[in-house]
């Protein structure tokens, strides 16, 4: 196995607020890693720093031996909100990454069409975002990130805005797509069962300051189907992680309501 992502001594301050403290992490090629934690634990900030959308206060993120300083074509970012351009069709939205990189040839178009088929949007390429459901829009969001053929896929709570049923479907779809390409994935979520279901490892973050509390290895067999969520092993993992962050979540909830 080769090392894909290496994070060392990562700190982030927003003015006086210490958002992240001493994050260190090594991710192997093709690993699926989730980050969970209470709100305010800096998990999204962490992902944004890896994406190059946010500078770190100190520490480094290295991808394939190169230090991250700004966004790049080696990383695809899937946003929490779909962020589709309303004046562009599904295909044109999905192709924005290659387009920004100056690649708009027929080859790119064919590849993007294949990706749209992969995410289950065959036949919708000429639709506009307003004609799609939330789940379909998130599929475009995913296809858009995959269209630049990134080394690492960064996903920021991509299913948070979907209803429970759609979310479960999207989870299995994501695993199906991931099994085909085996991209390295960093997946931020606040749903513990989602993290356990998808991941090889779950990073549990604590808040104030945001830091890596524990790294839980998920030794469930792949490929996984939704049925696995009812097995005792699965439930034990969820239970374990929940107990890790329970107190933190409680304080977070109280703080948010005061």
């Amino acid at each position: 196995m080769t090392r894909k992502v290496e994070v060392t001594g990562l700190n982030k301050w927003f003015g006086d607020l210490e958002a992240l403290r001493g994050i260190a992490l090594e991710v192997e090629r093709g690993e699926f890693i989730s980050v969970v934690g209470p709100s305010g634990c800096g998990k999204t900030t962490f992902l944004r720093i890896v994406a190059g959308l946010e500078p770190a206060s100190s520490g480094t993120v290295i991808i394939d031996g190169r230090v991250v300083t700004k966004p790049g074509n080696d990383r695809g970012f899937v946003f929490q909100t779909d962020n589709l351009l309303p004046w562009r069709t599904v295909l044109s939205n999905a192709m924005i990454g290659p387009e920004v990189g100056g690649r708009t040839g027929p080859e790119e178009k064919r590849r993007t069409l294949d990706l749209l088929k992969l995410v289950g949007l065959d036949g919708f390429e000429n639709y506009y975002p307003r004609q799609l459901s939330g789940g379909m829009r998130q599929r475009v969001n995913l296809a858009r990130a995959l269209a630049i053929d990134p080394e690492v896929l960064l996903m920021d709570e991509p299913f948070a805005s979907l209803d429970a049923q759609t979310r479960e479907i999207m989870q299995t779809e994501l695993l199906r797509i991931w099994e085909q390409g085996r991209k390295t994935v960093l997946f931020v979520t606040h749903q513990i069962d989602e993290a356990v279901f998808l991941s090889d490892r779950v990073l549990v973050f604590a808040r104030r300051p945001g830091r890596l509390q524990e790294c839980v290895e998920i030794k469930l067999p792949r490929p996984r189907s939704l049925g696995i969520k009812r097995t005792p092993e699965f439930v034990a993992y969820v239970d374990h992680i929940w107990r890790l962050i329970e107190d933190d979540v409680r304080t977070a909830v109280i703080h948010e309501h005061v």
Partner: protein
Amino acid sequence: MWEGVRRNNLAGTLSVVGGLLLWEIISRFLVANALFLAAPSQIVNAIYELTLSGEMERHVAISAAEFAIGYVIASVLGIAIGFGMANSPSFKQAMQPWISGLYATPTIALAPLFILWLGIGIWSKVLVVIFLVLFPVTINTEAGLRTTSERLIEMLRSFGATQQQIFFKVSLPSALPFILAGLKLGIGRGLIGVVVAELFGSRAGLGRLISQSADAFNMPELFAGVIVLAVAGIAMTAAFTSIERRLVPWTRD
């Protein structure tokens, strides 16, 4: 949906026809005084006569030129200033007091002054049109560019887009509906500018036609001028709406 459109059109048509009929009846039998009110039939006749004599063409041509020149200059200038304000905070700070001040001022009252400066030819009217159209276009352009969704910008940034790419692929298209709304607002304001400025002093134009008809108590010709203006306003706004629908279909709902 089509059912609804048909019904709306039917109601609209009935209302216009009924209104015209009522107007005809009132002016013929109730007012019955050509010094105060002209009946629709008399107005149509006046328009016909004015067109035959070539008089209407002369007035329309002058007013149209004043409107078109002023409108185009104001649009280009307004969009440019709006871009400048959205891109440079200090330029915005420098412009803001003038824009807000002049937008709130009834600049049309300055028309006599402009006539004094530029004479009673078309250029004093062009200046009035510019003053009336410029500000809504500027304000809307600036607002449209400023309210570009941060999320969409960030999405593009995540693909390593340059500032220029962000501007052309996100800011500009998302500001387009605002810019078009400003330009649409400018149509009505520009027309008012032309006519009122002509009322203050001119050799020809629809405003001139209206004021000279008023002086001569020629009600049919006065109304002829007003009607032509109204039709021009409605036609231009409608044409603009259809352009909008084609250019920014995503705002339709």
